[in-house]
C-alpha cells in the first residue's frame, strides 16, 4: 500500500512558550455548564499556557491534553495566553506529558513521548 501523502496541520496550533500550573480560587466563582447543569466553580487546578502566536478560530476549541485527560474548558486571557481548567483533578497524573491540541482530537502517542512539559500537581 502506498504511503499516504503528507498534510500540514489544517488548523495549525502555535508553539507553547510557557506553562504555569496552579491551584486557584475564584471569587466570584466561575460559571460552567456541565451536562446541562450550571456549576459554580470556586477553586481548582488551572494550567495557563502562553503561545508564540494566536490560536486559530474554529468551531472546535483548543484543549490541553495531560496524559489521558483532556482539559477542554478554556478561557482566553489574551491572544496568546489561555488558561485551561481541570474539572476532574483526579484524572491528572503526576509526570503526565502536556500537549496543546483540539477538543476531541488528542495528539498521537509519539507526540506525548516528546512532550516538553510534564504535569506536577500544584501545592
Amino acid at each position, binding site marked *: 500500500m502506498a504511503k499516504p501523502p503528507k498534510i500540514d496541520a489544517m488548523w495549525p496550533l502555535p508553539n507553547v512558550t510557557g506553562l504555569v500550573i496552579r491551584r486557584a480560587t475564584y471569587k466570584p466563582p466561575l460559571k460552567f455548564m456541565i451536562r446541562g447543569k450550571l456549576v459554580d466553580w470556586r477553586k481548582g487546578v488551572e494550567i495557563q499556557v502562553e503561545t508564540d502566536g494566536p490560536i486559530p478560530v474554529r468551531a472546535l476549541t483548543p484543549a490541553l491534553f495531560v496524559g489521558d485527560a483532556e482539559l477542554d474548558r478554556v478561557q482566553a486571557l489574551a491572544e496568546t495566553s489561555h488558561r485551561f481548567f481541570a474539572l476532574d483533578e483526579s484524572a491528572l497524573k503526576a509526570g503526565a506529558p502536556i500537549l496543546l491540541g483540539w477538543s476531541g482530537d488528542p495528539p498521537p502517542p*509519539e507526540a506525548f513521548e516528546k512532550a516538553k512539559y510534564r504535569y506536577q500537581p500544584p501545592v
Partner: protein
Amino acid sequence: MSDTRGKTELVDDPGVVSPVGLEPAWRCGKAVAITGHIPFARIDIERDGVVWVSNVRTEPSGARALIELPERLGAGQRLRARQRFGDAVSAWSAAQVVRDSREDYPAGLPQPRISPGPVYRCGAMSGVENILTGSEMVISANGNVVGRQPYADSPTATRISPQYEIGQEVIAWATLCDEQVMSRDYFPEPPPATLPQIEFYPVHEGARTVSMRNILPGARVRLSRNGVALPERPHPGPGWGFGLAEPVTRGETLSATQRLCAGDGSSEPGLTTVLPCSTLPGAGAWPPQRGDTSVRLHTFVPGGRVQVYADGVKIGDGSGPVVQLTRAVRGGETLRVVQKVGDCTSSQILPLDVHCVSPPFAESPAALDLFPVGEMDYDNGDILLTTGFNHRVAGVIRYPGQWDGVDAPFHERLGALVGRAPLAVFVHGRWGHPESYLGYRYIQEQLARMGIVSVSVDCNAADNLRSGDDMLDRSELIFAAIRHMLALDRGEVAGHEALKGKIDFSRTCLFGHSRGGEAVLLAAETVNLPRVKIAGVISLAPVDTSRTSGSPRGFAFMTLLPAADGDVVNNEGAKFYDRAEPSPFKSQVYIHSANHNFFNRTWWRDEGLVSVMDRESHEAILSAYCCAFFRAVQLGHDTLGFLDGRLRPLGVQTTNCHLSFRMARQVVVDDHEAGDGIEVNTLGQPARRLDGDNPGEYSFMQGFEGRYNDSFYHFTRGMVISDKKKVTWRTALGRARSLDGKEIWIRAADVYEKRKRRGSLARFELGLEDSAGNVRWVSSDGVGGLPLPFPLPVYLRADGRLFDKNKTMLKTLRFPAACFGTVRPRRGFDLASVRAILIRVDQPDGRAIAFDDLEIVSPRGAQ
C-alpha cells in the same frame, strides 16, 4: 425500433397516448393548466362528468398548456382532462376538484413576483410566477397598466406596452374572485452597456422550440434562419423557450441577437448549426417506484415528445418533465424511455428499473411564498451575562409583512384570519467575524414568506472565549433574543409595533450552526421563559462539548452533518441523533460533498476536506430540509415526507443527502442497546444466524471498548456482518403480525475499512417469513441502496499521525411491506401473518455491513 441492446422490440402503437396531468384549479379561475401532453395535442376538459371544452390545440414551446374556459370555475366542480393526438384519445386524467383559495390560503393569495429579473428599461416582456392558475394578472408601472393577462398560469409571460422606463415603480397584481394581491415593487434598471451574446442549447433537426441562454429579461430577440431574419419578438428571459412556425432542418444555421432600447444597439449574434437526428440524446429519467403512474425526467429536450415502454409495449406518450402512464408500473419491471423531436428518435434508449422505493419529487418545502418580508433589526446594547462578561444584544428579525421592507406592518390578513405566527431563532457558530449572524437571512426570508417570524442572534463576542464558557454565553444570548421578541410582542419597544400581539411562543424552534448547534440544545434544556415552549431544534454541524445532557428530548430534533466538514471533522451531531428521543420524531441528514461553512453566507472559506458542492447547492439543501422541519413542527404542514424519505425536494442534490429518521411509538424489533447479547432482540425474541456462527454486536462509538473499528462516530451499538460466505440472519417477532400497510425500517451502512478495495456498492436483502415458513426478499438496491462511505483523503500529519476521518455513517432504509407480497393470497407468502424478519448478506469480498434500529413502522403515525 429496438432498445440499445437490440433485445427488445418497441412497438409504437399510435393508439396509445398518455393521460395528461391536470394542475390544481381554483374557484373563479378562467383557465386550467395541463402538463405532460404531446406537442400539438388537442385537449378536452370535462366538468362534472360532461365534456365542457373540446379540441383545444396546444403549442410546443412550454411544459404547461393553459386552457381557457368558457366561464369561471365554481368551488367543488370536478374536472378531468384528456389529450387527443392523431386518432388516439387518452384516458381521462385524475380528477381535480376545484378548490376555494380562501381555504388553501386563508391569509390571502400568494404574492406574485416578476421572474426572471431584473426589470430593465425598455423591457418589453415580463415573466410572472407564484400565482394561482386562472387568476387575472396585471402589471402596472406608476399605476398605469402596461401588461395584462385575463387568465394566467404560473409562470406566465406578458407583453409590456409601453415599455419600462427608469423611475417607474413596477408592480405585478393577481386577482381571483374578489381577492387581489400585489407583488413587491420593482424599479427598472439601465441595461448593461454591452448586451451579452445569446448562446443556443443544442438544436436538433425537427425541433419547433429553440432554447437559449443569456437573454436579458424583456429583451427583443431577433432570430435568423440561414441568414433570413424573422420578426423581432420580446422575450421574458432565461428559462423560456422560443417557438418556431416551421421545424428546423439538419445543417441549418441559426443566429440570434437581442436588444433593449432602440438606440442602444444589439448584441453580437449568437450562432448555432442544427444537429442531425443521430445526435439526439436519450431522455434521462429518475427510476420510478412500484405503483407509480408517471415517470419524471431530469434531462429532456424542451418541446420534445417522450414515450415509455414496458416489455416492448407503449405505456406512455407525452412530454417532460413528467410523463403520465397508462397504467401503474410493477415492481421488478424494466422500462425504456424514448425521446423524439419532430421525426427524430433518440438513438439512446436506456433501461429504467422500477424500484420498490424511489421517492417521488415534489416542490421544495422552501418554495412556499405567501407573504412579503418585513425587516426589523435591533441593537439593545450590552447586558451582563452569568459568566460575568458583557455582551451586545443584537440581531436581525424577519417576519411576514404587509409589504417588503423595514418596520413594515405585520401581514394584516395573516394576523386577522390565521392568528399569531411562530418564532424561529437562529444561532451562528464561532467564526470570529462580526457579521456571522447575518449569514442565515436567506432562510429567515423563506420562513417569513411562509408565515414564520425569525430572529438571528449576534453571538460574535462569545467567539473570543474570554468568558470561560462561550456555550453558556450563547444560550443566554438566545434567551435575551427571545426576551426581546417577547417585548416586541407586548408592544414595549417604542417605534417598533409591527409584532405587537403577533408571535406565538408556544411553537418556538431553535436553529444552531457549529457551536451554535450545541448552544441551541443547551438553551432547549435550560429555557425558563414565560409563554415559551421549544417545539423543535435543528443542529447543523454541531460540536459536542458536554455542556448538554447529550440526549435531546421533549422536542422534535434534526441534525444535518456535512460529510466533508473540515472543522467539526468528527460529525459530532451523529451522537446527538443517536441519543435523541423521538419527541415526536428525530431526523438526520448526512450530506456528501458538503463542507462546514457554505451554509452561512458570511463564512467565505471552503474548509472542506475534499472538493465540495457549490454554495448555492449547500443553501438549497439546508433550505429544503429546514423548511420541511419548520413547516411540519410549527405550521402543521404535511412536510415530514421530505425528512423520512417518502419525498424528494426538487432543485436539491438529493443523491448527496442520506437520511435517518425515527418516529415515536413504533415497534422496535432490535436496537442492540439492551446488552443481553446478539441472540436476543429488543422484543425479547431469539435472533440467530441460520447458516453459521453469529455475527458480532459492537460499539459504534469512537474510542470505546468493543468497537468494530475506528470509522464509527455514532453513540450507539449495532450488528456488523462480515463474511465471505453467505450470511442469513433471522430475528423473530414473537407472534405472527400483520404488516399490511406497514414498513420495515433499518439503519445500515457499508463499513469503511482502510485496506479493502471497493468499487461496487455493498448490498443486502431483507426478508419476511410468514407463519407457514414462506419467505420473500427485497434487495437494499431496490429501496435506494447503500452508498459507498464518503471518500476522504488519508494524510500523514506533521505530528506523525495518520489523518483518516473516513466514516461509517448509518442511514435509514425503508422497506414497504407491500413490496414483499399481499395479504391472504391464495397461496404463497402471506403479509397478514409475519413471524420473523431476515437479513441476508452475500458479499464474496467479505465486506462488512453495519446494522441498527430494525423497526416495524406505521407510516401514518403511531400504532
